[in-house]
C-alpha cells in the first residue's frame, strides 16, 4: 500500500474497471466463437467472472486500508477495550500519569535552565572572563580595573568587553528611604548583551562615558512599578541615589535580568543600573572587584579564546610580576556560569525520575501481561479467523501507546500543577533563570516519552499475545496451563527489574539524605540561634569622614543594646553565610617580604566590640576589642585559629606583627587575640584563616549589625528600624534576617534536591511493591486449583502462605541483591554531591536493603494472604 495509491484510488478504480471490461470482452469473444448468441455469451462471461462491482470494491478497500486507517481502527478498538475494562485502564493510566508527570515536571525545569536559550540575543557568544589564581586558588576571581583595561586593549578574541559591579545604594526622597541593589556597569554592557530598554533608552558609551558630570540611571521594571507607581513620566525626572541626583533615562523590560552571583559584592538581583567608568590611567591591579563579560567574535571558539587570553595573561605577568604573577584568565560561558551550581543536581534528578518512569512501565507491562492471559481467547479467535500475527502485534502496541498517551495527558496536567506547587515551596532563586513553564518543547518531550513508554511496556505483552497458537487456548478451557509459563517468567523478570531500579534510587536518595544530615550537624563555629542581622549602609555624601561613620555605628550599637530583648549587639562588615568576604595577602614582620602574588592569603573583615561574645565564638588566647578601639584607630588585630596555624604554626601569635595589605599605605598590625574558626563561606566549605580588624581600621560605609536576642529575633525588627531612624532620619536598613535563616538558606538547594530525590525513591519503592503484590496475586489466582487440592489433602494454610512468600521473596531478594551490587558501582557517580558520606556507606546500604526487604515482604504477605481465602471445594469445582 503506498500513499500515491491511497490518494489516487479513484484512478486505480477506473483502471481496474477497464481491466475487468477487458476480461469480459475476451471471454465474450471466445464464447461467441464457441457459437453462443451475443446475449448468452455476455451472460456466461459475467457468470464466469462474478460481480465486477464487488471485485472492484474489494480492490478499492485493499488500497484504502492504509497505515492510518488501520491505526484508526486499532485506536477505536483499543478505546473500546479500555472502556470495557475501566479498572485496568484507570490503574495503568494513573501509574503512567505519575511517572510521566514527574518526568515532565523535572524536564520543564531542565528545559528552562539547560536548554532554552538565555534571554539575550548574543547569549551564545557571551562569556564571563575571570582571573584565576594559580596553581589551585580561586578559579573565578573578580578582576581589577587595570587588568580589565589591559584585556580590553590587547585581546584579539572579543568583539567587546564590559564590566559590572553589584553594589548597593540608598534611595531617598518621596517614599521611605530604601536600600536597593544597584549594578554599576560600563555603558556598553547593554549593547553587548543585545538588549534594549522597554521605555526610554539604555546607556550609550558616547553619551554616558563622562565621569560624574551627567548622572543617569536606568530602573528595573519591578522598581519602577514598586517605588514609582509605574509612572510613565518617570523618564527625565531626577531621583536621589546615595544623596546625589540622577536622571532616569530608561526602564528595562519586565523579564530582563543580568546578575552573576560569583564575586558579587552585593548578592541580590540589581534593581537599578548606573554607568561606571574606569579611570583610563592610574588604575591599579591590586584591588580586584569587577566582573568582566566578553562577547566572542563570531568565528572564535571558546577554546581558542581561552588559549589566547592565557597567552595575554602570561604577557601581563611578565610585565608586572609583582602583582600579576600566578594569575591567569579563565573564560566561562554565560550559561554555564548562571546554571553551574544547579546543572549536575538537575541531571541526577532527571535520571532518577526517568528510572521511576521505567518502573512504572514495568508495572503497566505486568498489568498488560495479566490481561493478556485473560484475552488469550479473544486473540486466539482473531488469529483463527485470519488476523495476521503482525496485525495483532500492532493492535496491542496501539493499545499500549493509547494508554501511554492518555497517561501522558494526565501526567502533563499533573506536572503543570505540581511544578507550580513545587516552585511555590521551593527556595527562592532555586533556578537561576526565568521560572520553569510549559512550552512546546515540554509538550513535545512528554509526547515522545509517552510513545517510547507505550512501546516499552507494550512490546513484551504483544509478543506474548502473538505467540499464542489458536488451538491452544481454544481447546483448553479458560484456566490456562503451560503457555502461562512464558508469561509468568516475563512478569517475574519485570518485578526483579523493578526492585533493582527501586533499590538503586533508594540508595542514592539515602546517601544524599545522610549527607544532608551530616551537613546539618556541622558546627558552624558560632551559635546561630536567636541572632538578628541587618545591613546598615551609610551614604557617602552624609558621612564623609571616617570618624563620623565610626561614631554612628558606635552610637547605634549603644542604643540597640538598651532594647529590652537584646542580650548582646555588635556588627560585622561581612557576616557569615552572606557569601562574600574580603581576601588579601599578608606579610609576617621579621620574615622576608614576598611579592604580592606569592604572599599567604587570608580573609579580612571589620568588627565592632563584643562581636565574638555576640556570636559566641570562643576566645582562645589574648583579648578581644574594647569600646575605645571602636572609635579610635589602632593597629590591633584579632585572628582566627586557622590564621594562627597558617602563619605561626609553632609559636604563640600574641604580640606578633603582621602586615595585611588592604590599603594604599599598610602598617603592621599587632595580634591581640586568637579566636576559634567559623565556617564563614558555608557548612560544606573549608575553614579559612581570617583577620578581624576593629572598625576604624578601614571604616567601611556598610556594616551588618548582629543582635543576640531573647525570644524570636524577628520580633524586634521594628524596634531596630525605629532605633536607626531615631538616630538618623532617612537612614534605611536592609536584609533584615535571622542568622538561622541565612544558615538554612545556604542549605536550601541541597535540601530541596534531596527531598525531591527522596520523593522519587518513595514513588519507585511503592511502584515496585505494587509490582511484587501483583505478581504474587497472580500466582495465587493461577494456582487456586492447586492450592485447593493441597488444602483438601491436608496442607495447612500456613505452609501455603510460606510457599507463596518464598516465591515472592525469591524475586524480591534477587532484585535486592542485583540492585545492591549495581548501586555499589553507580553511587560513585554521586560523589560530588555527597558530604561526609562514602559512596559505599555501609549504614545506608544496610538500611536501604533492610527497608526494601521489609516492604517487599509486606507486599508479598498482603497478596499471599488471599490464598487463605481459597475454599478447596469451590476451587476444585471450578473446572
Amino acid at each position, binding site marked *: 500500500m503506498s500513499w500515491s495509491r491511497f490518494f489516487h484510488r479513484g484512478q486505480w478504480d477506473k483502471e481496474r474497471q477497464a481491466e475487468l471490461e477487458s476480461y469480459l470482452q475476451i471471454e465474450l469473444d471466445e464464447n461467441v466463437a464457441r457459437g453462443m448468441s451475443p446475449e448468452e455469451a455476455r451472460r456466461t462471461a459475467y457468470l464466469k467472472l462474478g460481480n*465486477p462491482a464487488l471485485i472492484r470494491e474489494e480492490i478499492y478497500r485493499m488500497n484504502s486500508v492504509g497505515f492510518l486507517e488501520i491505526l484508526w481502527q486499532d485506536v477505536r478498538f483499543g478505546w473500546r477495550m479500555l472502556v470495557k475494562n475501566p479498572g485496568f485502564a484507570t490503574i495503568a493510566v494513573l501509574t503512567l500519569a505519575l511517572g510521566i508527570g514527574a518526568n515532565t515536571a523535572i524536564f520543564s525545569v531542565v528545559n528552562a535552565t539547560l536548554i532554552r536559550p538565555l534571554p539575550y540575543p548574543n547569549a551564545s557568544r557571551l562569556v564571563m572572563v575571570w582571573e584565576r589564581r594559580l596553581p589551585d586558588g580561586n578559579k573565578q576571581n573578580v578582576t581589577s580595573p587595570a587588568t580589565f583595561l589591559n584585556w580590553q586593549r590587547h585581546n584579539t578574541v572579543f568583539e567587546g568587553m564590559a564590566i559590572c559591579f553589584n553594589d548597593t545604594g540608598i534611595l531617598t526622597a518621596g517614599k521611605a528611604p530604601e536600600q536597593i541593589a544597584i549594578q554599576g556597569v560600563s555603558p556598553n554592557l547593554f549593547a553587548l548583551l543585545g538588549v534594549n530598554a522597554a521605555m526610554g533608552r539604555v546607556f550609550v558609551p558616547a553619551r554616558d562615558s563622562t565621569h560624574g558630570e551627567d548622572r543617569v540611571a536606568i530602573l528595573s521594571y519591578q522598581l519602577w512599578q514598586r517605588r514609582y507607581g509605574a509612572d510613565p513620566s518617570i523618564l527625565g525626572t531626577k531621583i536621589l541615589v546615595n544623596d546625589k541626583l540622577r536622571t532616569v533615562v530608561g526602564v528595562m523590560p519586565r523579564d530582563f535580568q543580568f546578575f552573576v552571583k560569583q564575586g558579587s559584592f552585593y548578592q541580590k538581583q540589581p534593581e537599578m543600573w548606573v554607568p561606571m567608568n574606569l579611570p583610563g590611567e592610574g588604575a591599579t591591579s591590586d584591588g580586584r572587584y569587577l566582573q568582566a563579560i566578553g562577547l566572542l567574535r563570531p568565528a572564535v571558539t571558546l577554546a581558542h579564546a581561552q588559549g589566547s587570553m592565557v597567552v595575554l595573561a602570561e604577557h601581563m605577568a611578565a610585565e608586572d610580576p609583582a602583582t600579576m604573577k600566578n594569575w591567569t584568565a579563565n573564560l566561562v560561558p554565560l550559561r554555564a556560569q548562571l546554571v553551574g551550581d544547579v546543572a549536575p543536581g538537575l541531571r541526577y534528578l532527571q535520571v532518577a525520575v526517568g528510572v521511576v518512569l521505567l518502573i512504572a512501565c514495568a508495572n503497566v507491562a505486568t498489568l498488560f501481561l495479566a490481561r493478556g492471559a485473560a484475552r488469550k481467547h479473544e486473540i486466539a479467535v482473531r488469529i483463527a479467523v485470519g488476523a495476521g500475527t503482525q496485525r495483532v502485534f500492532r493492535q496491542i502496541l496501539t493499545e499500549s501507546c493509547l494508554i501511554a498517551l492518555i497517561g501522558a495527558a494526565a501526567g502533563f496536567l499533573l506536572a503543570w500543577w505540581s511544578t507550580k506547587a513545587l516552585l511555590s515551596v521551593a527556595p527562592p532563586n532555586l533556578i537561576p533563570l526565568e521560572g520553569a513553564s510549559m512550552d512546546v518543547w515540554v509538550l513535545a518531550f512528554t509526547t515522545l516519552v509517552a510513545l517510547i513508554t507505550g512501546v516499552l511496556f507494550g512490546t513484551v505483552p504483544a509478543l506474548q499475545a502473538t505467540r499464542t497458537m489458536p488451538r491452544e487456548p481454544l481447546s483448553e478451557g479458560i484456566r490456562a496451563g503451560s503457555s502461562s509459563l512464558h508469561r509468568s517468567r516475563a512478569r517475574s523478570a519485570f518485578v526483579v527489574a523493578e526492585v533493582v531500579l527501586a533499590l538503586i534510587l533508594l540508595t542514592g536518595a539515602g546517601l544524599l539524605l545522610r549527607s544532608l544530615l551530616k551537613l546539618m550537624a556541622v558546627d558552624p563555629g558560632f551559635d546561630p540561634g536567636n541572632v538578628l542581622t541587618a545591613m546598615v549602609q551609610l551614604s557617602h555624601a552624609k558621612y564623609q569622614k571616617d570618624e563620623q561613620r565610626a561614631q554612628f555605628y558606635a552610637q547605634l550599637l549603644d542604643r540597640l543594646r538598651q532594647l529590652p530583648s537584646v542580650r548582646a549587639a555588635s556588627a560585622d562588615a561581612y557576616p557569615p553565610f552572606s557569601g562574600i568576604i574580603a581576601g588579601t595577602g599578608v606579610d609576617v614582620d621579621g620574615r622576608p617580604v614576598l611579592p604580592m602574588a606569592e604572599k599567604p592569603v587570608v580573609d579580612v573583615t571589620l568588627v565592632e566590640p563584643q562581636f565574638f561574645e555576640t556570636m559566641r565564638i570562643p576566645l582562645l588566647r589574648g583579648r578581644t576589642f574594647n569600646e575605645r578601639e571602636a572609635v579610635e584607630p589602632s593597629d590591633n588585630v584579632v585572628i582566627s585559629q586557622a590564621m594562627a596555624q597558617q602563619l605561626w604554626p609553632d609559636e604563640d601569635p600574641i604580640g606578633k606583627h603582621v602586615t595585611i595589605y588592604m590599603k594604599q599605605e599598610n602598617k603592621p598590625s599587632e595580634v591581640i587575640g586568637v579566636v576559634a574558626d567559623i565556617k564563614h563561606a558555608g557548612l560544606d566549605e573549608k575553614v579559612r584563616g581570617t583577620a578581624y580588624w576593629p572598625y576604624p581600621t578601614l571604616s567601611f560605609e556598610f556594616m551588618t549589625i548582629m543582635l543576640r536576642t531573647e525570644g524570636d529575633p524577628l520580633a524586634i525588627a521594628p524596634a531596630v528600624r525605629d532605633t536607626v531612624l531615631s538616630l538618623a532620619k532617612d537612614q534605611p536598613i536592609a536584609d533584615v534576617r535571622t542568622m538561622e535563616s541565612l544558615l538554612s538558606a545556604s542549605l536550601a538547594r541541597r535540601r530541596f534536591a534531596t527531598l525531591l530525590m527522596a520523593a522519587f525513591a518513595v514513588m519507585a519503592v511503592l511502584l515496585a511493591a505494587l509490582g511484587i503484590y501483583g505478581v504474587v496475586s497472580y500466582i495465587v489466582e493461577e494456582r487456586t486449583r492447586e492450592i485447593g487440592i493441597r488444602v483438601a489433602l491436608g496442607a495447612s494454610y500456613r505452609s501455603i502462605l510460606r510457599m507463596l512468600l518464598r516465591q515472592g521473596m525469591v524475586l524480591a531478594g534477587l532484585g535486592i541483591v542485583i540492585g545492591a551490587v549495581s548501586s555499589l558501582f553507580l553511587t560513585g557517580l554521586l560523589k560530588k554531591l555527597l558530604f561526609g558520606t562514602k559512596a559505599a556507606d555501609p549504614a545506608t546500604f544496610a538500611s536501604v536493603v533492610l527497608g526494601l526487604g521489609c516492604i517487599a515482604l509486606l507486599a508479598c504477605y498482603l497478596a499471599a494472604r488471599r490464598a487463605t481465602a481459597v475454599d478447596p471445594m469451590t476451587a476444585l469445582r471450578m473446572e
Partner: protein
Amino acid sequence: MPKRGAPPLDADLLQGTLDLLILQTLVLGPAHGHTIAYAIERRSDEVLQVEHGSLYPALHRLEDRGWIASSWGVSENNRKARFYRLTPKGRKQLARQTGRWNQLVAAVNQILRPAEK
C-alpha cells in the same frame, strides 16, 4: 510475530495458495487476467473452481508486494488487456512458498497414510 523456523499451519498459508498458483502460472511468461484464470482452472484439472473475479484482488495484492508487475498490452485477439509478469522478488517468493507447500503436503500425507491402510 510468528516465530521463525518451522512455520505452523496457519491462516496465512491457505490464503497464500491462490498466490502460489498465480506465481506458478506466470513462470511460463507474462499473461493477462483471462489467461491466468483459465490456466489455473486447466492445470488444476478443474479441481479448483473459483469465480474468475476473485483472481483480481489476488493479482492486486501480489503487485502490491512487488512480486509481479503489470502493464497494458494487446491480447492474442487484438483486445486491450493488462499483462502481468513475474518480478525477481516474485520468483524468490515462489521458490519459498513452494517449499512450504511441499512441507505441508508431506505433513498431511504422513498423517493421512496410516488411516488409509
